[in-house]
């Protein structure tokens, strides 16, 4: 990048700059989850037998379903960015709405999944859970903390996408200025990416 291209952004919207900011923010999110991944790795090594047993409790079907749902939603976000770039406003909004519906499906599945665990009295602090072997206890601690934190990120992502829809409607986002939809899209992919790691760790590796 030639240095002379540095333009004072008070005069120009700095497309590169805002994207760079978003990437940095995504780094911080990855490190936030990274701390939990580290804790998972430590305890998985320490209590591998207990983790094996506890992971069989998780519902692989719902997990797989949610993975598919999130992957499709990532695709629809990407498609809506392409739609904005080719000036198809209506199509972009429709695609974002589909994304929101998919995100809601994810959350509803999550609700039933967690609800089932609560029915089995497998919630943090419950007597059943506390009496389990230490490793299983920690597995469920991690399960609730990681999927819970991820669910919060899904909600934040949904809010961001909703704001984006309104900004498209009001004409703030258009073919000439689409960094906001791109950044919300990046955030949504992050939510997806973290899930792609959570899914095998919690559901597949038993």
């Amino acid at each position: 990048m030639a240095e002379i291209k540095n333009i004072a952004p008070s005069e120009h919207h700095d497309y590169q700059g805002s994207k760079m900011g978003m990437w940095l923010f995504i780094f911080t999110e990855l490190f936030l989850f990274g701390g939990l991944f580290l804790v998972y790795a430590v305890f998985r090594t320490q209590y591998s037998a207990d983790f094996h047993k506890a992971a069989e409790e998780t519902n692989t079907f719902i997990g797989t379903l949610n993975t598919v749902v999130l992957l499709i939603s990532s695709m629809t976000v990407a498609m809506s960015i392409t739609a904005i770039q080719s000036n198809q406003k209506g199509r972009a909004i429709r695609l974002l709405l589909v994304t929101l519906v998919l995100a809601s499906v994810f959350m509803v599945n999550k609700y039933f999944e967690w609800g089932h665990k609560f029915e089995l009295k497998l919630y943090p602090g419950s007597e059943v859970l506390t009496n389990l072997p230490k490793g299983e206890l920690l597995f469920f601690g991690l399960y609730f903390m990681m999927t819970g934190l991820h669910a919060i990120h899904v909600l934040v992502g949904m809010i961001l996408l909703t704001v984006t829809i309104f900004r498209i409607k009001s004409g703030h986002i258009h073919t000439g200025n689409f960094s906001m939809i791109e950044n919300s899209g990046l955030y949504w992919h992050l939510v997806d990416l973290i899930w792609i790691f959570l899914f095998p760790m919690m559901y597949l590796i038993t």
Partner: protein
Amino acid sequence: MSHSETHPQVSYLEYQGKYKGILGWLTTTDHKRIALLYMYCIVVFFFVAAILGLTMSIEKMRPGQDIMNAQTYNGLFTVHGIIMIFMIVIPGLAAVFGNFALPLLIGARDVAFPKLNLFSWYLYVIGAILAVLSQLLKGGAPDTGWTFYVPYSAGSSTNVIWALTAAFILGFSNILTGLNFIVTIHRMRAPGMTWFKMPLFPWSLYATAWIQVLATPIVGITLLMVIAERVLHIGFFDPALGGDPVLFQHLFWIYSHPAVYIMILPAMGVITEIFPTFSQKPVFGYGAIAISSLAIAFVGYFVWGHHMFTSGISYWSKWFFSFLTFIVAVPSAIKVFNWISTMYGGSIQMRPPLLYAISFVFLFMIGGFTGLFLGALATNVQLHDTTFVVAHFHYIIFGGMGFAFFAAIHYWYPKMYGKMYSDRWAYIAWGFTFVGFNLLYFPQFIIGVQGMPRRYFDYLPQFQWGHMLSGFGAFILLIGLILMAWNLIYHVKRGAIAPANPWKGVTLEWQIASPPTLENFEEIPVIKHNPYWFGTEEEIKREKKSVTRNT
């Protein structure tokens, strides 16, 4: 921009946007105003925490209970630590002087994301309010120490959750500032300012910002895990629930050791700006200083284990962390040599900023060398958790970051307010501060070696002489701080008008009006020389001759 054309002369202090008065400040997105907002908060909290520190010193002047009981004392050192660390030294220089000077130094009109900048100030205020509430609410001030070590912090009945949440939010504010600075430095340097034509304070802010962005989330999630432990009984760190307390220490120090460099790197950056200006000479070893900032940030990421030599980690990890701790001292030493060499052969003007900068080097050296005692495995076992550690990190944090803050405020004050403070009072305040500081902390090295533990409310009579001296030092130090604050506050209104360039500095901020206009530069400058270019050799010779004639 249109408004700057209609009021070309109005400074950022007088400029009126959409709102007037206080609301104009609270809704501002101007980096200079946000810097001042940060500064006012930080100064107020600094005095609060300093007074807490003073009461601790008074309590310890005699053995046994004097003015408070042991639980209050535990609360005081925790509160003192939380306020000083999370609200003052970590954001301190970057949020105040980074915000103020970074865009000026790189020839930009503002930071990359001005609204985000204001947002991070609000986060700071929310975090600060929570921290203050944790002290006042029913349940009692948290008594865990600022490190929140589990399992105690998971069990203590005091307001630990409030303090944890406060630290989490303050960390988030910090991340956003760092993010903003990285993008600003990448995208908004003036045309022609290549990376190696960038002044060195931005270099140090750049290194700092990366630590802020990459390390802070780790402490964020760690604090969340402790909150989960208290609220939801998810026992990642509680042995009774299968967790591991040493794991907490690892996660905590993975952030909190690099945080030491978040504190000290901008301080080094400020000092690097001051030495060339007051020596009227280009900085010695520009490249070495720039690269050593990055080296400190990088190596500083991998030394956290030296806080845990007595916590039960393996022999090889101790060896490894100790080795890296010695390595990280090298780039710091490089900087010290460069500062001293910058003065060599220069025309030195001993004005208050330089005096503070030299004191910084002196105190930082003591802090740095005693750090090596602690980094060495054998001596660490003897010195761990004694007042030697307290003295060491106060020499680094207060003697380093604190004195750099004083140097910075005396350096950029004319630019901030367009006024000059009294040099005479600045020297007097310096005298009290410097003497008080050393009297307060130096005896703690000695009684620490003799075995005085830190965080203890009571002690054996043979340590009394040290605590007594510390107590007197605390009073003298506070007098110095009050004098300094008075000198600066008084002259905002009544000081002499400052010229645009009172110190004959050559970096960009001195080429514009004092105080600057809203958008800093009428026209964005085009950079041709390195930042510390004092003219051609001919020009410098002529200047030197005229100086000798005049004196």
